[in-house]
């Protein structure tokens, strides 16, 4: 079984190598990419089933036992993340193939950019999920960041270069912070193996331990776009090509959230920063959604809702109860799917109406009913309208918050409810303007027939979102299990060190 664990990283990397070698044959490239991601998805599903049945699976890379070598650990949380991210990346890949803008855009370059980069991005994400070693987690982040740098500047137009620079520099800085933190952790403990750190960090003097924890939090906070470290996101994401924005919005921030969940539970379990986390969670929700209200472009607006809803996940983490974590994890799963879907729909709108600027478009529900349906369902899902998954995740968090009791959680629940209302408010505003008012398009020759593959991929994702509602019961069982395992750290640690931590 542990044979499977490295595959979600190795397969996409091999695919990247192949697509580089096949640069001259776009069709072959596409075949390779799709096959690799499909295989990754299959492996991820297998891993999820296994971890659910028999607990975390550990792979010792190169046969080097921990803590000497690097271990990859697939527990339920990691496996669940793998499944969702693989599914989403696959859909987005198909969508982008449908869009074909890469092939046309980059014919002049010696290496066909998109497919290798995209595969490397996937590998980075999966590596981050599987890493059982702090420094390797850093490497995983570097992989996905480097790939994202290339993707966000794809096409190299003036806007993309401008926003891309912001994105790159901010993320390089956060990586530097992360790297420093890793170095300091090693300096203080003499190891970077997470399972071993779990016990060695406990032994450190409080001040040092707290500094390390906060340092990591800041680093991940930037990647997860937690207020006040979030301002870079709405500037950089919306200008990228639709599929890129979609996969960024869906996955990259969640990797940050995942890292926060992992470190806060495994390395720094005593909820000492819970108060801080709750405050920033509340601010993230409210400031984010206010930002969305102030926007007049669909993509930017959804970038702000993205930031805002990160607050929900942080809230669940801050509660550090099984219910809270479980809610967070479910919300992550939901949000990955829905945010990606919304950006894909925005992409369809752009193709159809020539723009996503609310000042320029209108009447799409008459002009393009299918897009209308896709958008409405997704938007309502994001706004947490029952019975969609957004509602279920929110409900889980509310229940957790109320169960914990106390002033701060109560305030957070209120903030969460308000955020949900405002999300609905902006969603209805977009709907009223872009879909209901008298038709107007921002292009002379509108594309009436949308590429089938684009629509198909979007529909697939919408359906995936609805499935989350239908099978919410089993998923919540998994997330609750995962949360319980995270909170008492022994399953993870024992999986890495069957006979006691050295």
């Amino acid at each position, binding site marked *: 079984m542990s044979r499977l664990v490295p595959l979600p990283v190795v397969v996409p990397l091999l695919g990247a190598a192949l697509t580089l070698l096949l640069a001259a044959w776009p069709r072959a490239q596409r075949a390779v990419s799709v096959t690799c991601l499909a295989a990754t998805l299959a492996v991820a599903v297998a891993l999820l089933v296994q971890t659910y049945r028999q607990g975390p699976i550990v792979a010792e890379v190169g046969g080097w036992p921990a803590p000497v070598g690097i271990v990859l650990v697939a527990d339920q949380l990691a496996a669940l993340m793998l499944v969702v991210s693989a599914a989403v990346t696959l859909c987005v890949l198909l969508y982008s193939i449908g869009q074909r803008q890469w092939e046309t855009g980059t014919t002049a370059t010696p290496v066909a950019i998109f497919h290798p980069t995209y595969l490397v991005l996937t590998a980075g994400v999966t590596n981050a999920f599987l890493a059982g070693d702090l420094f390797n987690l850093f490497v995983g982040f570097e992989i996905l960041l480097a790939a994202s740098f290339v993707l966000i500047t794809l096409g190299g137009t003036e806007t993309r*270069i401008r926003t891309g620079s912001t994105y*790159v520099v901010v993320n390089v*800085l956060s990586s530097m912070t992360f*790297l420093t933190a890793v170095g300091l952790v090693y300096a203080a403990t003499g190891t970077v193996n997470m399972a071993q750190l779990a016990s060695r960090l406990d032994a450190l003097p409080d001040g040092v331990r707290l500094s390390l924890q906060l340092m990591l939090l800041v680093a991940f906070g930037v990647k997860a776009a937690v207020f006040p470290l979030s301002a870079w996101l709405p*500037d950089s994401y919306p200008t990228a090509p639709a599929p890129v924005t979609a996969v960024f919005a869906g996955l990259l921030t969640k990797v940050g959230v995942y890292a926060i969940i992992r470190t806060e539970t495994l390395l720094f379990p005593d909820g000492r920063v819970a108060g801080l986390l709750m405050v920033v969670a509340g601010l993230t929700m409210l400031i984010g959604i206010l930002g969305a209200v102030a926007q007049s472009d669909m993509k*930017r607006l959804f970038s702000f809702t993205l930031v805002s809803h990160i607050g929900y996940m942080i809230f669940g983490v801050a509660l550090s109860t099984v219910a809270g974590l479980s809610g967070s994890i479910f919300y992550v799963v939901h949000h990955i799917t829905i945010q990606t879907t919304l950006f894909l729909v925005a992409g369809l709108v752009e193709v159809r109406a020539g723009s996503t600027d609310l000042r320029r478009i209108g009447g799409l529900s008459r002009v393009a009913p299918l897009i209308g349906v896709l958008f409405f369902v997704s938007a309502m899902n994001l706004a947490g309208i029952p019975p969609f998954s957004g509602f279920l995740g929110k409900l889980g968090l509310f229940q957790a918050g109320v169960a914990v009791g106390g002033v701060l959680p109560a305030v957070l629940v209120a903030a969460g409810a308000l955020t949900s209302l405002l999300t609905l408010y902006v969603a209805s505003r977009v709907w009223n*303007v872009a879909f209901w008012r008298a038709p107007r398009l921002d292009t002379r020759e509108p594309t009436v027939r949308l590429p089938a593959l684009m629509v198909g991929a979007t529909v697939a994702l919408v359906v995936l979102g609805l499935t989350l509602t239908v099978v919410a019961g089993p998923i919540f069982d998994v997330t609750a299990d995962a949360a319980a395992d995270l909170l008492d750290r022994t399953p993870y640690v024992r999986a890495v060190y069957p006979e006691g931590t050295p």
Partner: protein
Amino acid sequence: MSGPSLVLVVFVGVLVACGVTLLLERSLTRILLGIILLGNGVNLLILLGGRSGAPPVVGAAPTAEMSDVLPQAMVLTAIVITFGLTAFLLAVSYRSWYLTGDDEVPDDIEDRQVVRLAERNEAPTTDLGGEGSGGDPEQVDPGLARRRDRGAEGPG
């Protein structure tokens, strides 16, 4: 363990300080130089996490006196990654110069629009295609309107 020696700590501090100062500039070249300085500082900081000693080549020196290997491996990885990113950022600043004539990172346009809105007291809803009921005489009496555009709602 005694920990790192002061002079190296000073090295780290100074490089980080200078790096950060450059990082806060607007010219991509300067930002990049800042990143490199910062990187050099951080690399040494990581190295300080392990003990110094003889080169870690088995046979050349007794194992006990060897310098710590793991930080070296980490730093080596970091160095090479930084190199890759440096090359990429240089390409970005070249592209930026190629398109705009300089390599500076200007403010985000859409954000500035909102900021301007905030400074002038303007009604935001006007952005949104005049959404909002503002002075619509038919607020609650669509009947009258319907006589104008019959067929919009069936009867007639």
